[in-house]
């Protein structure tokens, strides 16, 4: 293992790779700080462009973008009261009031240092948990993998907004059905092509992912043109900024609790920083001696908690992606696309066969956080400028980059038309308030589910009982069932309790 660590570190500490990470972090910070442009969008833009790069450079670059974009959301949240990414929604609640009181540097410092500490601890969790889980996953058979796919969809459904759980399942079935399109390699028959030969090779995942995410978001972003919010003025002093590190370190309990929440939520398939920051904020409020002061911008922990949690989710989200091939959130889903683009299938075998690639990811994760911290120290005023770029300049440029990226994957316009088609589908779902993530997961996990189901049935002579009788598979299916069945039962029970007070 030590030789793999050294090889991974050697890859990352090549001058060009370090430059790629730095450029990725800087680009991610800019995109993440612009409200409406998420980390997923930033990675989606870049993944196709990494096609021609060596994987040892491409992955660190994408890790840089991932870290930068998630961290970048805090600037918009604090100075505009608009989270740059959903991951910073909780930061708005106290970060903006704190900045409005003339303590913008303090708010930014608290957010930056807690982000970096949360992210680094989650990196340690990633490095320790992922290899262990990969070892356990080596014993998984097709029954366990199929059960994991079911668990992933149940997680997304369980975490959906109230009343949208069934819609999340519908979205997943749309994705799985779209993954059926094309030639079935096992039987040699074409499925759902409606006679179009262009569809026989199926949909390439990346144009679909980029279209589903980018087009609806960019169309919706046009609503904000001409309504740019007022940015709070900031007198940035480096000494004031660095002084907040002590304040963050004094809140060890909040920091560790939020980091734990972030890692735990990040590990759950399909949910990530968007949820963890809100949960961490509410838990910090519950644990606080002064919950009434939350929302006023007085307490440091109200800024520290959501920011530590959202960055901690990043390490957590990478764990199932690297060890099982199941993405922890939308951004790692794009990262999964990047691995597949370079011919590498994430899963337990990745640790055995391409250990140096795994360690390249691990090392670049830490390096990206180090660069992110450094950039924040010296370029905060520049980041503040980024959030005031009018959208009309950004939107067409991003659409053009997406188009070029989709074309460059296979050098064919069909992928660009798929990008547009999936974009229109994503827009329809956006209007109907149906989550897009399950569609993408369906597209990615659909073929895996089919392969594993067929293998499991073939090994079991057509019997479905091993799904329930094998301990790990049975346990995963039971948890999936409980995650779906328990929330409505508990909600009804709580409803009764409030209706019939003692």
């Amino acid at each position, binding site marked *: 293992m030590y030789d793999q660590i050294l090889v991974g570190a050697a890859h990352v500490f090549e001058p060009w790779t370090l430059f790629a990470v730095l450029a990725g972090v800087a680009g991610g910070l800019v995109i993440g700080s612009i409200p409406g442009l998420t980390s997923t969008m930033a990675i989606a833009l870049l993944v196709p*462009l990494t*096609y*021609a*790069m060596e994987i040892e450079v491409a992955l660190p670059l994408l890790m840089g973008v991932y870290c930068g974009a998630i961290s970048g959301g805090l600037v918009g949240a604090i100075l505009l009261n608009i989270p740059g990414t959903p991951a910073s929604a909780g930061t708005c609640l106290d970060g903006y009031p704190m900045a409005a009181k003339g303590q913008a540097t303090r708010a930014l410092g608290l957010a930056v240092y807690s982000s970096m500490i949360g992210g680094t601890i989650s990196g340690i969790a990633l490095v320790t948990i992922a290899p262990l889980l990969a070892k356990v996953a080596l014993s998984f058979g097709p029954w366990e993998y199929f059960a994991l796919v079911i668990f992933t969809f149940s997680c997304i459904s369980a975490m959906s907004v109230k*009343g949208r759980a*069934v*819609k999340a*399942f*519908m979205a997943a*079935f*749309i994705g*799985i*059905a779209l993954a*059926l399109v094309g030639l*079935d390699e*096992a*039987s040699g*028959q074409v*499925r*759902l*092509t*409606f006679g179009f030969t262009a569809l026989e090779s199926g949909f390439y995942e990346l144009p679909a992912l980029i279209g589903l995410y980018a087009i609806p978001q960019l*169309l*919706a972003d*046009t*609503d904000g*043109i*001409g309504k740019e919010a007022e940015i709070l003025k900031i007198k940035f002093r480096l000494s004031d900024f660095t002084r907040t590190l002590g304040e963050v370190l004094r809140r060890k309990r909040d920091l560790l609790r939020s980091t734990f929440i972030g890692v735990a939520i990040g590990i759950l398939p399909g949910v990530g920083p968007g949820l963890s920051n809100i949960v961490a904020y509410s838990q910090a409020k519950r644990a606080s001696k002064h919950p009434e002061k939350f929302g006023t911008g007085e307490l440091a922990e109200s800024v520290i908690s959501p920011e530590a949690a959202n960055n901690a989710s990043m390490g957590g989200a990478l764990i199932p992606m690297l060890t099982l091939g199941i993405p922890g959130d939308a951004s790692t889903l794009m990262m999964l696309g990047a691995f597949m683009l370079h011919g590498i299938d994430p899963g337990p075998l990745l640790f055995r066969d391409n250990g140096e690639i795994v360690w390249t990811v691990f090392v670049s994760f830490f390096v990206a956080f180090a660069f992110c911290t450094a950039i924040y120290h010296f370029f905060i005023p520049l980041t503040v400028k980024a959030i005031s770029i*009018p*959208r*009309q*300049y950004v*939107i*067409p*440029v991003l*659409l*053009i*980059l997406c*188009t*070029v990226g989709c*074309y*460059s994957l296979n050098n064919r*316009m069909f992928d*660009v*038309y798929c990008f*547009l088609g999936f974009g229109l589908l994503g*827009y*329809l779902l956006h*209007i*109907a*308030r*149906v989550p897009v993530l399950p569609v993408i997961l369906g597209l990615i996990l*659909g073929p895996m589910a*089919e392969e594993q*189901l*067929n293998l499991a*049935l*073939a090994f079991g*002579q*057509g019997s479905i009982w091993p799904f329930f009788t094998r301990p790990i598979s049975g346990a995963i299916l039971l948890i999936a069932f409980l995650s779906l069945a328990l929330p409505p039962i508990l909600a009804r029970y709580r409803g009764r309790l409030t209706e019939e007070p003692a």
Partner: protein
Amino acid sequence: MRTSDLIFSFLYIAALLIAATQLFKLSDMNAAVVSAKLYPWLVVGAGLAVGGLETLRTLVSKESGEVSGISVIWHRAFARRRMILLGLFVVYLAAIAFVGFLASTAMFCFCTILVLAPKRSMKAAVVAALTTAGTLGLIYVLLVVYLEAFLP
């Protein structure tokens, strides 16, 4: 949201039923242990069941409190700027085959910035021209020179 939910459920079920018509054409191989039809039918069947469940849930739901009515949703979905951007993008993709990538990209970038801008002025035109030149330069240097990739 009830009306839009029902419209979505209807479209979803219709799409899966159309997909189901294609599955009848699939045949099994004698040597295969597992039927080639099993998984596709499982997906379409379970998908239809979920769609039916959601339709029923929406119909019997007491939730009348429409967060926003269908007209509001419709108005937002077909907002002027959104449709202009979508229209320009479709024209841009169609134009690539006839005009070439660089020319169509330049036109798309310049026109979109100007059309989306809240106020049209000489300054906006200059910024649009500079952004267009910068974008084309970036794409050329990054993709053609550095990554040696092909342009559409």
